[in-house]
């Protein structure tokens, strides 16, 4: 043995041994028996070795990096809790954005962890399997660190106490839940197109940036620090998203129409899901970052536009109905907040009418729509509230079969007419909010006939009976008068004032 041989492997060998060399060619089982989900979607993979690993990371290094990030992150969490960091937020209304995040977004991280763990098992190529394995662990880490980031606030504010339970039951949380379950029940290639590409690559900046910058602008140190800690992971996830789409498209020309259909579907689904982010930015952040319309322009119209230009050479065109999102950007945040305001008795957070100053900001950001359509509605409701008749809508809304959002969004070419489409499938009528959602149904009706629509479930008697107070209190576990209702005069507002006086 040569005594000079180094015991350490160089980077290149180490990478090869710790990634690609972990796989082997099966000799006594057939490939299709080992990877039974690889073919049914119609995607043709000719050569898995063409997969470029976007992460260039081995598991031992991965642990080292992540452990270092955790140490820094938890040091900040400790400092925030020791110094009563909750008192540094701009305004107690801000915490409602945190409540929305923990109930609507954190459970998606957990579902992403499960999703990548599943699909990572299904690919014939070792590069794709390892990338999915690492992303799966990332997503679990994000779930955990988000819970820890927000657990401090949970000691002082309502609405966060039962977030996994609420995610499975509460009417508006069926929107993110059904979105992700749609992806998780798809084949492995559609899952990656949906989550890695359409969501992580095309739309993630519209989810992450508003919440993390919103936290920074509003004195929420825990969420900002979590955001920094997740940033390098997110960068890897975006790289995977782009790699997967290019890899599939390069493997076989028959893949192009399949991928195009998925891009059409998942851009539309993602856009509808992000309505809640729009409302958060325009209505829930006391200190605003930018308007939803500005964010959509910057991150979808400009960045997304350049991306789809780049994909043109594969025969990919921009997603169907993208032009409707450009019209919708001036309406959707207002319409969404209006929904939550009037169903504010069934939300795990407080709702309110924007202040006069906030309304002026909205007028400035939305010169074509806010003063004409939305200011009069909020002013009417403010008048009612001043007379002690704060408006709560005690009826149940009609929901879209696909996105499960109330039909509260107007026609692209008529902003005073509710957008509604329907279809009859095997003698049963189905309703939709848009052409985009109806298209998704038409492509896979056998899947969407089973949608668990919260309103219909209540009316079938599956949510604890006909008494809405019981549905909200017992079935959803939203504590009446604590977690929900109007912010003005709420226990949350009252406690905040007491704490501030005590300092």
């Amino acid at each position, binding site marked *: 043995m040569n005594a000079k041989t180094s015991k350490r492997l160089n980077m290149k060998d180490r990478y090869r041994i710790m990634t690609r060399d972990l796989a082997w060619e099966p000799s006594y089982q057939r490939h299709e028996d080992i990877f039974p989900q690889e073919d049914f979607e119609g995607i043709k993979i000719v050569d898995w070795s063409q997969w470029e690993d976007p992460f260039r990371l081995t598991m031992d290094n991965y642990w080292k990096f992540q452990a270092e990030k955790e140490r820094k992150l938890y040091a900040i969490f400790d400092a925030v809790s020791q110094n009563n960091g909750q008192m540094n937020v701009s305004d107690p209304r801000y915490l409602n954005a945190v409540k929305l995040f923990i109930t609507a977004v954190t459970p998606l991280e957990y579902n992403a962890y499960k999703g990548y763990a599943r699909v990572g098992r299904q690919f014939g190529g070792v590069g794709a399997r390892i990338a999915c394995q690492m992303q799966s662990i990332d997503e679990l880490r994000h779930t955990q660190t988000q819970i820890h980031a927000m657990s401090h606030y949970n000691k002082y504010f309502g609405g966060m106490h039962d977030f996994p339970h609420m995610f499975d039951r509460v009417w508006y949380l069926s929107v993110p839940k059904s979105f992700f379950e749609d992806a998780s029940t798809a084949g492995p290639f559609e899952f990656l197109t949906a989550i890695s590409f359409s969501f992580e690559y095309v739309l993630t900046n519209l989810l992450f940036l508003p919440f993390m910058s919103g936290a920074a602008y509003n004195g929420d140190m825990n969420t900002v620090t979590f955001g920094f800690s997740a940033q390098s992971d997110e960068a890897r996830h975006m790289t995977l998203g782009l790699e997967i789409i290019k890899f599939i498209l390069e493997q076989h020309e028959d893949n192009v129409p399949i991928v195009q259909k998925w891009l059409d579907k998942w851009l539309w689904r993602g856009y509808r899901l992000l309505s809640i982010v729009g409302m958060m930015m325009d209505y829930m952040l006391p200190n605003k970052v930018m308007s939803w319309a500005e964010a959509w322009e910057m991150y979808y119209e400009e960045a997304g536009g350049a991306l789809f230009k780049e994909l043109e050479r594969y025969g990919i065109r921009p997603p169907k109905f993208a032009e409707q999102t450009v019209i919708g950007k001036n309406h959707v945040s207002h319409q969404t907040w209006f929904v939550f305001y009037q169903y504010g008795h069934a939300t795990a957070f407080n709702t309110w009418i924007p202040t006069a100053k906030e309304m002026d900001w909205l007028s400035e950001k939305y010169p074509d729509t806010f003063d004409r359509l939305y200011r009069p509605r909020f002013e009417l409701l403010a008048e009612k509230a001043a007379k002690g008749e704060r*408006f709560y809508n005690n*009826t149940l809304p*009609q929901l879209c079969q696909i996105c499960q959002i109330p039909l509260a969004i107007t026609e692209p070419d008529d902003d*005073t007419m509710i957008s509604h489409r*329907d*279809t009859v499938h095997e003698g049963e009528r189905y309703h939709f909010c848009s052409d985009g959602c109806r298209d998704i149904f038409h492509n896979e009706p056998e*899947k969407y006939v089973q949608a668990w*629509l919260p309103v219909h479930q209540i*009316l079938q008697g599956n949510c604890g009976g006909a008494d809405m107070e019981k549905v909200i209190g017992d079935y959803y576990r939203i504590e009446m008068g604590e977690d929900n209702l109007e912010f003005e005069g709420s226990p949350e507002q009252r406690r905040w004032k007491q704490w501030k006086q005590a300092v």
Partner: protein
Amino acid sequence: MMSVNANYPNYQGPVRDRVENFHGSQLVYVLWERHLLFCAPLTFLADPEMSFVDFLSEILRPALAPHPESEQLRFDEAKWRLDGEDFQPDLEKSLIDNGIDHKSQLRLITPWLSDLADAAI
């Protein structure tokens, strides 16, 4: 309409909202056109044998009461659409005999109520 591409043949999810699941009642949706104080069309549970006039007085009118124009709302002058078609209800007939079946959408159209119409409240 196309068909789902599943990893086994003849995939069919359960039809979760068939009328049998509503214990003798059916769903009726009502959209009051260009009146957006109620942010979305309303979903009601109704007996299919209920007369149209009872549906109006017992279900729809109380539900719309919080709207500032509800007092001026006269159903006998309203125009209706049912599932995308113009519709002339027979007040005494039942919902089902009027053709209003499970998951039908009724539209109430009252163009003369215009005080708040610019903002479509």
